[in-house]
């Protein structure tokens, strides 16, 4: 499916306009560019070089009801064009890109709160509702979903479900797939169905995570909780990653359910300490690093395309940062040797919440476990600071791109028995090419997720994308060799599609059969998920 010829465009425009309304169908240049990509970092590299990666959609449409979506899918099948569902476009795997043109189906006009039932602890929303708005509506009634991805301001319920997302409190409340009671979905052939969490076989858990390849989620009934009476934070310093990971395992396997449990490796702990003004986290090394990559800008950045004379200080910082990024292997090796001795070890943050008496008891029990694992108590300060800024980190990546680098994240998961090997193997695979750090979060009694952040020089231009691809290929190959899953919560989209056969083995054939059954015309988000 490619961008359409003029006669085909006219026919499709007429059909879509008739099904929706002229105001809700657009072929405008601006819309087509915006909806051509999501927040996949590789597309940022292409944009920086003024090269669009993909074929923008031929149309953007805004349905208001499930039956309109059904009609759009019928039209798409008739005209042999792709349909790509769109929430808020904040996915980081290219899942919402229109790689074959077609129709971008924006759900944001389907964003109503349909029902909140405090007796049954259930709430029903249309799928286009933004995450923070959903949470605010629940909070008004003393309730919470318990789902706090860092993208909560710019992601939708439908997007969460489509990607199997996780929030920062998943250790207590679960991932999004644990929270859903019922879905309404429009399948690829236009059939509108409801999938219940209790029916067998569990069709709902086939739709969840399918990233718009099997159906378009239009509304969901979610299980909700009372707002916690209290939150208790505490932080600990561990000498090594292994000790901190053991501490997390002890806490989770004792049956405790803290909402937050995060362990930063040495470099990530150092970066995390940059924002700490109190001094107990500050080291000389973190002060130096803060000069280079942290802190506030002394002057506003110029708009894109406008040359602005840099201050000498800013110029030096940028040069130093680029220099560091282009010597990633050396810096990683230096870090491995030096950081354990000068940077103060690994930071662990724990947050317990709920009924006051239970949260306090849980916090006390966790405290004992973490001390027994070798942790040193740092009090509540770092945890409170993390909580205050917990959504901010995703918005701090721009300076690296401006400085001529790129940054991306690789979030994987495995069982406790394989966790440290996974950490070591991925680091070993990526560290010759990029500065890499990691934190451990989304903990379970049986295992944990590791969230790697890597950064490298994006210049010289033209080579950056090859470097980016090489890093991902090495990283995911290491994940597969370590027996782990290639994604814990960001999803697969386009970026990891080539590894789906490794992830699923014979299961990829089963997935293709599901696709054939539920989307027989193949209109839904083609080219994604390795299908």
């Amino acid at each position, binding site marked *: 499916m490619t961008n359409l010829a003029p006669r085909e465009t006219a026919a499709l425009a007429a059909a879509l306009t008739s099904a929706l309304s002229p105001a809700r169908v657009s072929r405008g240049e601006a819309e087509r560019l915006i909806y051509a990509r999501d927040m996949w970092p590789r597309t940022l590299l292409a944009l920086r070089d003024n090269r669009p990666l993909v074929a923008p959609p031929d149309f953007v449409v805004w349905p208001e009801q499930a039956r309109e979506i059904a009609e759009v899918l019928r039209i798409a099948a008739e005209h042999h064009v792709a349909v790509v569902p769109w929430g808020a476009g904040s996915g980081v795997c290219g899942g919402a890109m229109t790689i074959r043109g077609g129709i971008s189906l924006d759900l944001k006009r389907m964003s109503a709160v349909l029902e909140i039932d405090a*007796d*049954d*602890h*259930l709430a029903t929303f249309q799928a286009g509702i933004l995450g923070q708005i959903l949470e605010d509506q629940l909070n008004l009634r003393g309730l919470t979903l318990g789902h706090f991805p860092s993208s909560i301001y710019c992601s939708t319920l439908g997007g969460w479900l489509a*990607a*199997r997302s*996780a929030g920062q409190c998943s250790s207590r409340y679960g991932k999004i*797939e644990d929270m859903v*009671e019922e879905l309404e979905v429009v399948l690829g052939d236009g059939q509108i169905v409801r999938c*219940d969490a209790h*029916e*067998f*076989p*569990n*069709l709902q*858990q*086939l739709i969840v*995570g399918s*990233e718009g390849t*099997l159906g378009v989620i239009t509304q969901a009934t979610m299980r909700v909780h*009372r707002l916690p009476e209290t939150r208790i934070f505490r932080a600990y310093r561990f000498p090594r990653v292994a000790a901190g990971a053991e501490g997390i*395992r002890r806490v989770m*396997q*004792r*049956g405790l359910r803290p909402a937050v449990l995060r362990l930063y490796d040495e470099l990530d702990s150092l970066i995390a300490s940059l924002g700490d003004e109190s001094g107990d986290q500050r080291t000389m090394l973190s002060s130096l690093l803060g000069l280079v990559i942290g802190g506030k800008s002394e002057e506003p950045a110029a708009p894109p395309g406008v040359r602005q004379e840099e201050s000498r200080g800013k110029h030096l910082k940028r040069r130093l940062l680029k220099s560091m990024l282009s010597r990633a292997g050396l810096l990683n090796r230096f870090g491995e040797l030096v950081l354990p001795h000068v940077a103060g070890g690994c930071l662990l943050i724990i947050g317990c919440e*709920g009924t006051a*008496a*239970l949260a306090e008891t849980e916090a006390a*029990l966790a405290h004992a476990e973490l001390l027994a694992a070798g942790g040193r108590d740092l009090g509540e300060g770092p945890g409170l600071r993390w909580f205050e800024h917990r959504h901010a980190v995703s918005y701090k990546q721009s300076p690296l791109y401006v400085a001529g680098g790129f940054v991306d994240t690789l979030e994987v*998961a*495995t*069982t*406790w*028995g394989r966790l440290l090997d996974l950490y070591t193997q991925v680091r070993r695979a990526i560290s010759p090419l990029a500065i890499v750090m990691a934190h451990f979060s*989304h903990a*379970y*009694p*049986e*295992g*944990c997720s590791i969230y790697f952040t890597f950064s490298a020089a994006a210049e010289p231009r033209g080579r950056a994308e090859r470097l980016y691809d090489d890093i991902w290929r090495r990283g995911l190959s290491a994940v597969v060799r370590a*027996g782990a*899953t*290639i*994604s*814990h919560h960001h*999803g*697969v989209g386009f970026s*990891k599609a080539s590894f*789906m056969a490794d*992830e*699923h*083995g*014979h*299961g990829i054939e*089963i*997935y293709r059969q*599901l696709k*054939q*059954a539920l989307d027989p015309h193949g209109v839904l988000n083609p080219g994604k*998920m390795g299908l």
Partner: protein
Amino acid sequence: MKSDENLHTPARAPTASTPAKELELQNVLGRVVGAVHTSFADSDRANYGDLAPDVVVWPGSADEIVEVLRAARPAATRVAVSGAGTRARHRWPPPDGRLRIALDMQRLTNILRLDETSLLVQSQCGIQLRVLEEALRRESLTLGPLPDSVLGSTLGGLLADPTPLAYSPLAGALIDACLGVTVATPAGGLLETRVAPRRATGPDLTRLYLGAGGALGVLTDAVLRVRRLPEHQQAVLFLFPAPVAAVLCAREALARGIHPARFVVLGNERATKSLVGGAFGLPSGLAALLSGPEELVEVQRLLLEGIAREHGGSELPQQDADRWRTMHPDPVSRDRPRAHAFLPHGRVKAALPALAERAEERQLRLVVEQLDLQGSQVWIGTEGPEDDSLADLSGILEALGLRPRRARHGSALAERLRAQLDPAHVLLSPRWH
């Protein structure tokens, strides 16, 4: 059980009248699983109720099951999986002229791997849960709080056909503890889902097969989350003036974060007498088995005590709570007819008093269990005359608008998936007709 005489007796010798199809099948199955594990004997075939198989096979590995399914497709043969309970109990689809193979899992009973670091066990699906639980307990581990009736199932049987009984507020549903499966598919492949605590790599293919009644694939082994044996447990028992108050108390406890290993509302005096062994003057009770670190158990107990008082409940002495814990029976006797339905919390005040009244009229025990934040399962069971039937009990619940959260195996969408995954309809299931 496989007849002893067939352990060493190969399939019956062919005669002039033995159909060619059957002969061919006999040869193929003998090559795949071994003649000694293949039987056409009437005495073996009679053990499978109205499945009425033409042949019984006892495969010894997942690969053998794959080969049986591969052999079945071109032969237009149907294969039905049988564990401990399916042999005679279920109603199978009527014969359709195709040969039927009963695939008996009783040789697939090995525990393959125990990962004590990750608290995971991988076991073949023919193992009885009681045997698995005993093996785990020897390592100070457990599948979690499960009633005795569930422990009699095989692992594969429970995963293919879940029961609401295999649930506790503390551990969740046993089916949710399954993190990975190996499945022999109707197409003749072997699917092994990758084990990770959670994933975001597309549809959850493990969930495709759990609860599918063996119609989409044959579960050969599974990886389950296990738990450490509880550090401390304490039973508590409260009496309430009415079952509504007891259920609302339980709901409030769950909402405040108390998750007992077992939580039972004794809906009427008959239930209280039967399950606690005494009459206490108030019609309803709430029994809870709190489990975990001692400090946490104590805090939960104090909180629960306070919530019970808020709802008009009074605590019974520890010896009565301990007696309930010791008896620890199923909600109602497994051997007597019983029916269950899902009761949303929002309907408790409207439906439960009426149900309690009907239970008294009909001399039924009323129990509410498997509580979560959304609702609970109500169970009614007879102690009356033997002619009370399950349909009659279900009718009492339906009259009040209460229905089970039943499987929708026959839904149009499920059938569409089945047609795609098993176009030749090789797999037979008692749940799909």
